[in-house]
């Protein structure tokens, strides 16, 4: 007997008991739908965390000044004034370092025409757009020459643009006052949105770091160095090299604590994604359990079905069905129940996922591999839980099956 005949026999047997077939499938439908929704939410959450981390820049390392102790009180990281632009230039010469941008941060009131706004002023180098993977929306960025001359030029973030130019006019070429000092706007940054910590990254004004030091903070140190490693693989090596270079430059010997700290954003990313992976694993595990429960439901119904259809099995044997044919038919019925249930479950799961992302505003990603795995797994459930009842049916003696009351 060929496959098509087997399939059509199994399908007819299932269609003869529509409502029972549907109820049997329900377990698998719910199981698979649960797998799809939970995996979609898990992968979605992980992807969005990864995107937020990636938006911080490519292969980014951040060097911060260390803690300083004043009358016994330690300030914590960033408190010391130990990093200089010269440190930045030295780090830039290391192999494996693609670019370095020092950052000098100040919080100032800015004025443009009749509007004013308080925001973060970041003094940076022209390499900043590369290091932070942050493209311009319009205009140009300031040059090395602007840095050398501590030029009074600025590049505005989108939030600042919206607040200083509410009429929508182009800020390029206009003049703004930062802490009373006039700066010319040369460009605007592309919108970046919220950071992983919920900060509005667009609420910023960029100026050359030299200008920030000379005209705004009046300091000779920088608040951080943003370092971009040339590849993701070299991040760890670069981190070690920066540490030893700065220890050397700052004359720090072994027992002494470093007066700086090098942070690697890949660590943050790895931690975040491993948390996500654990969550996903847990959710998928719970969903898999529900699938197995669905499979037990199938086995239960198939066993009832074998008992109920004993006479039918006897008849089929009398009409020439081999034991193997009977086994194949009942196994096919079980696999059909579970696979059709799995497919319906995928559809329900996709609809459920769309509802979740629509109503809860969670970002979700339905992985194709997950969909395929769910359907395959449900087919496996059918084979596994269908085999026992099918074998039981095939072992019936035709004469006893025919006599069965």
């Amino acid at each position, binding site marked *: *007997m*060929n496959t*098509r*005949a087997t399939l059509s*026999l199994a399908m*007819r047997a299932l269609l*003869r008991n529509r409502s029972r077939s549907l109820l049997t499938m329900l377990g698998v439908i719910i199981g698979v739908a649960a797998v799809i929704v939970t995996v979609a939410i898990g992968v979605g959450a992980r992807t969005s965390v990864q995107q937020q981390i990636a938006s911080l820049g490519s292969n980014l390392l951040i060097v911060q000044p260390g803690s300083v102790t004043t009358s016994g009180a330690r300030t914590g990281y960033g408190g010391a004034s130990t990093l200089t632009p010269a440190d930045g230039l030295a780090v830039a010469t290391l192999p494996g370092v693609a670019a370095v941008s020092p950052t000098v941060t100040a919080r100032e009131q800015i004025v443009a025409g009749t509007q004013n706004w308080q925001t973060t002023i970041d003094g940076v180098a022209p390499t900043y757009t590369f290091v932070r993977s942050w493209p311009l929306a319009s205009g140009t960025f300031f040059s090395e020459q602007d840095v050398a001359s501590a030029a009074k030029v600025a590049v505005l973030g989108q939030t600042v643009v919206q607040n200083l130019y509410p009429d929508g006019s182009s800020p390029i070429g206009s003049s703004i006052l930062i802490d009373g000092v006039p700066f010319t706007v040369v460009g605007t940054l592309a919108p970046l949105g919220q950071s992983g910590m919920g900060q509005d990254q667009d609420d910023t004004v960029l100026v050359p770091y030299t200008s920030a030091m000379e005209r705004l903070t009046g300091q000779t140190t920088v608040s951080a160095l943003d370092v971009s490693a040339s590849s993701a693989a070299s991040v760890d090596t670069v981190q070690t090299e920066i540490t030893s270079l700065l220890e050397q430059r700052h004359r720090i010997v072994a027992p002494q604590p470093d007066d700086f700290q090098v942070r690697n954003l890949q660590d943050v990313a790895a931690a975040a994604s491993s948390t996500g992976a654990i969550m996903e694993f847990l959710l998928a595990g719970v969903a898999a359990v529900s699938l197995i429960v669905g499979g037990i439901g199938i086995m239960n119904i198939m066993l009832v079905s074998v008992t109920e259809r004993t*006479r*039918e099995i006897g*008849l*089929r*044997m*009398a*009409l*020439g*069905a*081999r*034991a*193997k*044919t009977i086994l194949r038919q009942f196994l096919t019925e079980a696999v059909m129940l579970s696979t059709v249930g799995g497919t319906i479950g995928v559809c329900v799961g996709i609809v459920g996922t769309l509802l979740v992302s629509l109503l809860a505003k969670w970002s979700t990603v339905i992985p194709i591999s997950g969909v395929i795995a769910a359907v395959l797994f449900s087919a496996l459930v059918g084979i596994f839980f269908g085999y026992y009842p099918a074998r039981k049916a095939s072992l019936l*003696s*035709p*004469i006893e099956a*025919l006599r069965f009351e």
Partner: protein
Amino acid sequence: MRPVVDVRGVTKIYDLDGQSIRALDGIDLTIDPGEFVAVMGPSGSGKSTFMHIVGMLDRPTAGTYSLEGTDVSQLDGDARADIRSRRLGFVFQAYNLLARTSAIENVELPMVYAGVPAADRRRIALEKLEEVGVAQLKDHLPNQMSGGQQQRVAIARSLVNDPGLILADEPTGALDSKAAESVMRLFRDLNEQRGITIMLVTHEPDVAAHAKRVVTFRDGHILSDATQDRKAA
């Protein structure tokens, strides 16, 4: 002429709660092509056991059984299923049609197991339904047909693989006398006009009267084996 059924010394012993019951005890019987044999006897005489062995639904404890010249008593389950599928046709007392399945699909079923292509199945099934006079009921479900009609569908089903022998187990047991008479007439027509060999188990003399030969069983032995003039058609 090669006999259809040739049974030599067939014995069947059941083990029931540690007690062995000798249902058949050394049966010898030959059925030639074209015969119409009625097997009679009270319940417990062994006539049903005999039919199950001839129908290859059961195996004898001892003795040999040749079907159309081939010794089939030693065959395994698959080979037995194949012979049931290709050489034997069954008609049961309770019709045994698949519920919620149309007449024509019921008739097609043995051909599915015999591996007949789908297109041929439909055509042959319709032919056989016409032959037994219920072609107009082909799309009816069993519960939409009378007992006589269901039994005719079951007879059509037994014919589809051109069997060498049709085995009928109390085929009129569930029918009223009029329907029973009409079903028996169908069996006679199949035997006389198509030359189909039929072995029929019954305990009703009225039914047995349609056969050319009556074999009577008692306590696992053949009590009598006689050729008779048929009841007038």
